[in-house]
């Protein structure tokens, strides 16, 4: 049977995420803490909290970089969540000099507390789907999810699927690229039934 592997960077709550994915998908869900435990899973999930630099260091310590780049090269399914989504990009203002995975073209910038909004952006906020979006993320349109972050991913290309209001504007809260690379800035595993439903939609296409 196909497996979904949750990559554990040792700095985040992988257990809740595994529980939530098991609720959303019939596939086998495994938490792996280094590359040697990983074995060509159908889907890789990269969660993460903490700083970009620490995340990059853990990717390298645990040799996950190759695992992820190989999976991306083979067109396998990858979902980055929160810091995990940011790590898919090339660099971050948070940790200059730290090299992200570069699986998507873009960089990570600080959220600016404006218009009465506070940073970190912690709590529930709404995902808004781009009208052109046909990805499995579009079902999240108008629903509330739990966020917990101080930085935002800015993509070079227009692969935006979900945005979320903040400080008078919007930031990218979800994207899909070439139907196998997904990123979510919010935590579906902490977003009650909205999150479980979205995970179900996302993993539906993983066989």
């Amino acid at each position, binding site marked *: 049977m196909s497996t979904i592997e949750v990559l554990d960077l040792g700095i985040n*709550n992988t257990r809740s995420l595994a529980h939530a994915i098991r609720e959303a998908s019939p596939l086998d869900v495994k938490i792996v803490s280094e590359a040697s435990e990983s074995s060509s899973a159908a889907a890789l999930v990269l969660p993460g909290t903490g700083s970009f630099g620490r995340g990059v260091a853990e990717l390298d310590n645990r040799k996950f970089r190759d695992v992820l780049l190989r999976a991306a090269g083979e067109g396998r399914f990858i979902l980055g969540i929160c810091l995990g989504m940011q790590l898919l990009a090339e660099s971050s203002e948070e940790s200059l000099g730290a090299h992200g995975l570069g699986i998507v073209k873009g960089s990570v910038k600080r959220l600016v507390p404006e218009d009465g909004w506070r940073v970190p952006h912690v709590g529930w906020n709404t995902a808004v789907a781009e009208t052109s979006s046909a990805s499995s993320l579009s079902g999240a349109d108008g629903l509330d999810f739990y966020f917990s*972050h101080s930085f935002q991913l800015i993509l070079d290309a227009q692969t935006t699927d979900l945005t979320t209001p903040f400080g008078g504007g919007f930031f990218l809260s979800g994207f899909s690229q070439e139907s196998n690379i997904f990123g979510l800035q919010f935590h579906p595993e902490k977003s*009650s039934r909205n999150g479980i439903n979205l995970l179900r939609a996302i993993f539906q296409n993983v066989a």
Partner: protein
Amino acid sequence: MKIRVIPTILTRGATQVKGSTFDNWRIVGHTVASAKVHSARDVDELLVIDIDASVNQRRISSLLVGQLAEFLRIPLCAGGGIRSEADIADLLAAGADKVLIGTAGLEVDGFLERASRTFGSQAIVTSLDVLGPDYEAVYSRSGRKKVLLGAAEAAIKFEEEGAGELLVQDISRDGLMQGLNQDLISLVASTVKIPVIAGGGAGRPGHFVDGAKAGASAISSGAMLQFTHFTPRDVKEALTREGHDVRR
């Protein structure tokens, strides 16, 4: 931003307790059972604090946190007796999303800075337990030890050291359900840029509105959501009526 409604469960080990003014504790139930009720009511987040862990040099149980994480699909913040990065790593691995740090944030030099650098600000909530007419004193060790810092000074210190959120409580109002200290909340919320969680004293939905008006991003409540007929839904309806956005 949507105003969060956060039930607080005070615990001793896995036993749920209720007190007033950080004292007069009595056993009222089982923490896991109580968390299940809150989860079924689909609250925005849950805060679980082991009230005398710090005083007794224990720590909130990671076994308890693990049990809660199995069924909770909302954020969980765990507090009580957290003194080291190893404590935090352990609780996050067990399934907590963030930890509440009180005593160690005031007593252990550099701890908050190290913790927020390692785990990220979003994982670190600090507790500001305040007493006195001019909020001139904050307390550690569950309100037993006076620290020579005013509420505003302590709030700035916590923010500078990397806290992601601040839980503000007026000890003299804790558990009495007579209302929050709006003045204190507004002092702290206008002093920092990080989100403020207001706790200590909510007794009816209107008190949550008071907290939101004073600038809190979230309001936590133990007694009211546990022992009165008011539900989180009642609270959200009250907040909506007064023009505050809540999670749908």
